[in-house]
């Protein structure tokens, strides 16, 4: 059981929260000490796509066919209708259908 040490639990929460805050705030704070030149600007601009790619690619590699079909359905729907909600629904529905079909 976890709950036999209220003080320890509070210390654990404080330590984890501090670690999260340092990470969430640190990069922003650090960049405030630099002048942002064109190269750094391009690096920052490339980050959102790079984070998505590096989060998703390993999942797809091990996630089986339903993952690929879901991502494909979401991407095609997004290109066609430019609507986040439609894209997510298409992706999730495709995954559910694929799994129901045993894929």
């Amino acid at each position, binding site marked *: 059981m976890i709950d036999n040490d209220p003080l*320890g639990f509070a210390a654990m929460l404080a330590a984890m*929260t501090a670690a999260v805050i340092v990470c969430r705030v640190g990069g922003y704070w650090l960049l405030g000490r630099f002048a942002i030149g064109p190269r750094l600007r391009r690096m920052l601009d490339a980050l*959102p*796509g790079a984070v998505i790619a590096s989060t998703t690619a390993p999942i797809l590699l091990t996630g089986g066919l*339903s993952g690929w079909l879901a991502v494909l359905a979401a991407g095609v729907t997004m290109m066609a209708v430019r609507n986040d909600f439609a894209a997510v629904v298409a992706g999730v529905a495709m995954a559910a259908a694929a*799994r129901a079909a045993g894929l």
Partner: protein
Amino acid sequence: MDTAPQSQLRWTLEGFREGALATLPLMPGLCAFGLAFGTIAARKGLSLFDACIMSATVYAGVAQIIVVESWPEQLTFAAIVASAAITALICSRFILIGATMRPWLGGLPAARIYPLLYLLTEPPWLLSTRYYRAGGRDPAFVLGSCTATWVTWVSSTAPGYWLGASLGDPHRFGLDLVMPAFFVAMLVSLWQGPRRAIAWVVGSVVAIATAQLFGGFWYVVTGALAGSITGGFVDD
């Protein structure tokens, strides 16, 4: 894109509402994730109150699940430091994510920006990035999206705690793929031509290689860094 001077930035209720509404498509996925954490917390013997407080303060889904799953027998100083280190490792990608907000939010007063950054996770970050690139200049959009995400996460912890395994398998309904589907939709929105997409390919390859070679949680950071550096050297 130049650093936005403070005079161009607004801070309005409409911006907040727009940001919150933009987050709606993700809520089923966020709920499924929050329910999963609640279920794990109940199974490991956390009290309901502690589970909810943890979701509200630590507010880092994967880190919470990993730490609760591997909860130490004795909460010694070393065990607490180790858990904080795991949390920092899993959250290290936020150092990069926060950095991208500097050109946009650099003009905001610290009392507004730092609480906002504490709540900044991937979904609001991506929605806000797209909003900014489309010409949006109201940082209350970011706060609206962050708040909606936080409320969804915290409020889904308790139902997961109570209902646990009786909820059925979210995998069967494809809910584990809400985030990947959303990410790909964002990627379509962020498309700026094939030259810029070289960075995505490099990021994917490095992330896959890292995951295969080392496992664990490093792959997001190595892939993101590799993609970002590549982007820095791809000229317009």
